[in-house]
């Protein structure tokens, strides 16, 4: 899968390199805020955390912002509003699941009809990934085609291999162009060590989601009512999900704005007439599951899920999508 040859460097050197290549760039990386890790724009590489659990947010919001202005009404008429694309950005230490999520949302936003804002932000941003040494308690990336050592969606992948050494993998040309030739070639011992760590990391993924073969058959089942009973219809799962991408377009004064929206919300599918084809809670929860594990796969060939586990971890009532999806065959078939 990987593109070029893997190289190895020490932490200090890697730091220096990151510092020099991110010169003049907007840097986005993991930082600790009030004891929890978040991806945030940072001042410099020195602010970035190197060792962190799954961040609260993914990197989605830097490509699909919570609020993006699409148009502005001016005295001379309506003017498209573009993000500043001349400015380069670098995302540091994206976890493999979050980076992979970009490849999933790319299919929607950069398919036949390319989205102006998303496209621009994708184009000017280099994604530097960091492999997971150990999976978190909610992770299930292996079940949906990902891996703690995955590199999809990254331009460059970095993996810690002990003794403050790091393996660099130039995943894309852009990554290579950005980084140049750095480090020394990884020897076979290092490569073997790398494979051992990878295996260990993959083994640390404790959770498995069994995705039913025939989800559509369960559509009319009362199962959805049962599993969604406690759901609060809030937007935690969708807003923290690295692949959820629903939005609304609203006018705010002189601006036409795109902002996040979610299938959980009461207003999401309500028509102007007041009619709502998904008026009940279970219909909305079911929609979320089906969108991820049925419709998206049908439309784009992949699941709309990277197995990061955020939706379960942060759900205020601990609704566990892994358990719910995995049990469809057993309990959900009519």
């Amino acid at each position: 899968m990987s593109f070029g040859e893997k190289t190895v460097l020490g932490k200090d050197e890697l730091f220096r390199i990151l510092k020099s290549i991110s010169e003049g760039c907007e840097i986005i990386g993991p930082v600790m805020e009030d004891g929890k890790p978040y991806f945030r724009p940072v001042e410099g590489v020195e602010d970035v955390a190197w060792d962190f659990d799954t961040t609260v947010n993914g990197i989605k919001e830097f490509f699909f912002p919570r609020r993006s202005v699409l148009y502005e009404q001016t005295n001379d008429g309506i003017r498209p509003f573009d993000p500043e694309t001349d400015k380069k950005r670098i995302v540091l230490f994206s976890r493999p699941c979050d980076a992979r999520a970009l490849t999933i949302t790319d299919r929607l936003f950069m398919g036949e009809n390319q989205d102006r804002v998303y496209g621009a932000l994708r184009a000017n941003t280099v994604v530097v990934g960091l492999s997971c040494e150990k999976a978190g308690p909610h992770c299930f990336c292996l079940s949906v085609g990902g891996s703690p050592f995955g590199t999809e969606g990254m331009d460059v992948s970095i993996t810690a291999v002990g003794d403050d050494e790091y393996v660099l993998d130039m995943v894309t040309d852009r990554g290579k162009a950005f980084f140049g030739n750095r480090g020394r070639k990884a020897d076979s011992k290092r490569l073997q060590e790398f494979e051992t760590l990878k295996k260990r990391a993959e083994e640390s993924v404790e959770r498995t989601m069994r995705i039913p073969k025939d989800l559509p058959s369960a559509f009319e089942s009362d199962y959805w009512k049962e599993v969604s009973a406690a759901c609060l219809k809030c937007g935690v799962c969708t807003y923290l999900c690295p692949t959820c991408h629903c939005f609304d377009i609203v006018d705010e004064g002189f601006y036409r704005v795109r902002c996040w929206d979610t299938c959980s919300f009461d207003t999401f599918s309500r028509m102007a007439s007041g009619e709502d084809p998904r008026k009940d809670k279970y219909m909305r929860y079911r929609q979320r599951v089906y969108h991820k594990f049925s419709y998206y796969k049908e439309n784009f060939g992949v699941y709309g899920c990277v197995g990061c586990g955020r939706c379960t971890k942060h759900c205020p009532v601990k609704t566990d999508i892994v358990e719910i999806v995995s049990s469809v065959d057993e309990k959900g078939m009519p």
Partner: protein
Amino acid sequence: MIGKIREAAKRMLDDGTVRLFLGYGKNGLGDTVPVFLKHKEDVEALYWDETCRYNLTRYLTDRDVICLEEGPVGVIVKGCDQKSLKVLISEKQVERDEIRIVGVVCSGMKDDNEEILSKCGTCDSWNPDETFCDIVIGQTVERKIEEDEYSDVEEVEALDPAQREKLWGKYFDRCLRCYACRNVCPLCYCKECILEQNDPEWVPPSASKENNFYFHIIRAYHLTGRCTDCGECERACPVGIPLRTINRKMIKAVKDGFDFVAGKDPEARSPLTRFRRDDREDFIT
């Protein structure tokens, strides 16, 4: 304790006193979750421990789950949850005879790090009100209640306006407008939240720091004189906004201004629906 809870639930479901029972259970990961039981056979799913933090009264107004008109519902309440229930009754959202209240004595809930929740330290109602509940389960706990000093509120109040704006700006910048705080709140029972109405639109739905500022003011204002500090909003917030501090600011303001504490009396209405001719005037220009 859990035995008695199961027993009570079983009895109520068995003799038809209730058609649905709200309690605490566990999911596959071992996390505590709300459970909705319809059959007496299901009562083994009930659990009780120090992670039963949820305020189940929130579900009493959740029309997707419960139609109180269809028959009585049993619900487990802790002393703190009971306050929300009293407000719900006073605001005609729940009729007392539509529910069976199983009060459970609580000796403080714990967070994921096994620390006792800060709200539990100053809680004055570890023992549910026996005159209000249908049954109370558990031995009455005798304990010294820590005086609530509102130090969290006072810390903010000690800042100058610019510092305060910066502090809240930091938090509201994080806010995703996922509305978990609102949706988990037992008192946010509106059919359609004012924030979702758009003719006129009160706050734009996009999650910018400025918009979020007004969203949080509205949320806090609408809970003024009603909030019982159950802390569910803060617990639900995925990005760690100290929502209780905001709520508690208003609880303190209501206490200082109107000598009112919400959730004590199922007959009492919010002090904003009352007045005294000699209310404070020092803020008048």
